[in-house]
């Protein structure tokens, strides 16, 4: 048996690695390891509850907006005002989150995933006038692949023209990401780490000029999603159709849903949301989500054994780096004791099965265009397609939300922090089901727990020794070339893993900068 180690898979020093054990070309076992302890829950203890919105956003560089929404829903619920947020506040939160997710989905596909399929070196043969492509060509001619390496060699299947076109889209996507960030800043005050989404509503009012400036960018992104992103997904499907059969995963899907269309139900999981909450089993049966069925297990994680099997509302974070069976800093969240995948595929599946008309139309169209059954969605390409469908539904819907805003009406309602309370904020971030739980004592945080999407997807084995969703997706995969294990890295990236929580101290090679000292 040989071992293929993808470490660090995120290309950020040592946060996440995957070990795949291969025998006769097939993955027999896989271990997904989060290599960094996340101390945020401990840091929040004893603080003013309102700090949770600001601090949890800083866990990460790309999901801050999702954390700000989960933290705020959590606080709204603990403060007893979850059903009293003014419509303007609810809608502005949706718009800010929508801009974040659009920007994130585009970034994921082009900057992170596409390079596993697109051969950048083909741009060396480009002979046109596009300045971006010519500057990529200049990189290649200088012998630097710049941001496009390290990469595997071999299984690149597009004709030269398609490779060149997709590299052009890679460059366009950078501008689209920037537009999305600008949209967030319009209503959220600043980006990253917005100060505007707060318990009670938001702090920004929907002035007409802001609405116009948001809409103008939204239309530009919509154009890109419709005419570039969606067609590119079909292009990948055309040349890499076997990836509808690779990386099936655990078969169970969990969505908390997102984008409240109505804020009057204090139970977030029962709200009418643009994307629906639901627990979907492999036979495509949909059931409502019961938050009490969520528990985190630590038999194979570096935490004290006594903290296993707890619902996050009673969750503990007691690290034990000497725990012999441990192989990850990630806990193993399970739903009803079973392994569940979260993410765009779960959102799309729950919405599809509950009859959301936009999602239904797009899924049916996609499946008929590629000639596949719904079961094909449980795959690498299924996950990419689901992410693109989420982006498309958002761009179709957000302009309508702008029209629902009522300039001059309230965006916020005042509240008091209770002496003692508990709260729960559940929402899908762009990578999937995100939950924050709080317990307040003496107006301070006594307990805070976050269960983030990649904790679900990248989780290690649990107390029953069930492998996590990614581990299950890897096991059984045939690897054609063990020195270039494209299959494995394509499976991992389709989940859009986000475990980094960001350390990025710059580390120059050689490590001695004494000659550059100025103080």
């Amino acid at each position, binding site marked *: 048996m040989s071992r293929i180690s993808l470490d660090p898979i*995120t290309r950020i020093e040592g946060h996440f690695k995957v070990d795949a054990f291969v025998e006769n070309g097939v993955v027999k076992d896989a271990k997904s390891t989060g290599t960094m302890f996340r*101390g945020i829950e401990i*840091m929040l203890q004893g603080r003013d509850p309102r700090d949770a919105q600001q601090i949890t956003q800083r866990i990460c*560089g790309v999901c801050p907006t999702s954390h700000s929404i989960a933290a705020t829903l959590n606080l709204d619920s603990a403060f007893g005002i979850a059903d009293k947020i003014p419509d303007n506040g609810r809608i502005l939160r949706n718009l800010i989150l929508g801009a974040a997710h659009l920007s994130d989905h585009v970034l994921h596909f082009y900057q992170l995933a596409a390079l596993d399929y697109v051969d950048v070196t083909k741009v060396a043969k480009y002979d046109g006038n596009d300045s971006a492509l010519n500057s990529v060509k200049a990189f290649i001619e200088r012998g630097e692949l710049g941001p496009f390496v*390290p990469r595997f060699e071999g299984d690149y299947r597009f004709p030269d023209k398609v490779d060149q076109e997709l590299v052009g889209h890679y460059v366009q996507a950078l501008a689209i990401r920037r537009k999305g960030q600008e949209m967030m800043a319009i209503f959220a005050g600043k980006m*990253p780490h917005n100060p505007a989404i707060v318990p009670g509503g938001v702090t920004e009012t929907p002035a007409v000029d802001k609405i116009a400036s948001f809409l103008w960018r939204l239309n530009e992104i919509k154009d890109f999603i419709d005419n570039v992103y969606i067609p590119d997904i079909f292009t990948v499907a055309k040349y890499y159709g076997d990836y509808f059969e690779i990386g099936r995963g655990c078969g169970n899907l969990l969505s908390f849903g997102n984008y409240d269309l109505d804020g009057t139900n204090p139970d977030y999981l029962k709200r009418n949301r643009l994307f629906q909450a639901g627990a979907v089993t492999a036979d495509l049966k949909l059931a409502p989500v019961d938050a009490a069925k969520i528990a985190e297990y630590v038999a194979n994680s570096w935490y004290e054994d006594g903290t296993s099997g707890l619902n996050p509302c009673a969750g503990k974070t007691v690290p034990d780096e000497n725990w012999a069976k441990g192989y990850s800093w990630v806990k193993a969240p399970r739903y009803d004791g079973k392994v569940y995948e979260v993410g765009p595929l779960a959102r799309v599946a729950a919405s599809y099965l509950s009859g959301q008309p936009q999602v239904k139309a797009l899924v049916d169209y996609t499946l008929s265009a590629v000639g596949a059954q719904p079961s094909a969605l449980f795959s690498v390409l299924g996950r990419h397609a689901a992410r693109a469908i989420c982006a498309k539904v958002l761009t179709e819907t957000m302009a309508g939300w702008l029209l629902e805003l009522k300039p001059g009406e309230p965006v916020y309602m005042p509240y008091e922090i209770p002496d003692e309370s508990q709260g729960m904020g559940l929402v899908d971030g762009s990578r999937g089901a995100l939950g924050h739980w709080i317990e307040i004592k003496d107006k301070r945080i006594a307990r805070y727990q976050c269960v983030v999407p990649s904790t679900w997807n990248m989780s290690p084995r649990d107390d029953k020794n069930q492998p996590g969703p990614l581990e299950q997706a890897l096991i059984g995969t045939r690897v054609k070339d063990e020195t270039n294990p494209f299959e494995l890295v394509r499976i991992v990236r389709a989940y859009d893993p*986000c475990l980094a929580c960001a350390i990025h101290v710059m580390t*120059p090679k*050689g490590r001695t*900068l004494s000659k550059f000292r100025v103080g």
Partner: protein
Amino acid sequence: MGERFTDRVVVLGIGNELLKDEGIGVHVARELSKRPLAFPVEIIEAGTVPDCWQADEPTGKLVVVDAVYGGCEAGAIYKFSPEDVEFQNCLMTSTHQISFVESLLLSEITGHKPAKTVIIGIEPKEVAWGMELSEELRSRVPDVVEAVLKEVTPDQE
């Protein structure tokens, strides 16, 4: 030392302020924003999104403030340009983030590369969970602010 600027001048404070000294760039950006400055400069508290400095208009000078492992004692302040050093472990393809060094490479492709980039680096003492800087670094914040101001203050003539 003074320069003349026609295009935008940006100070970019990067790092994760939940990881003690890793957040030095953010602390410095905040301190700078409190100073009344008599010249135009954009101060961006980029935190963990180090690629957010790009704009449609051209960037004349970009001054990046970040923790840097440079081999000297904690609190040492370095000034260098990206061409002076070769970076390791900074390239992504799978992470959710675009690192600063990548964003600079990508800006060459998109045509947004700053005319000049300077990195003001500070040697961290402690990178671990916590929101406060170490004493060594906290006492250096005013010196880092001065080093940054030197870079962005235009020539008086």
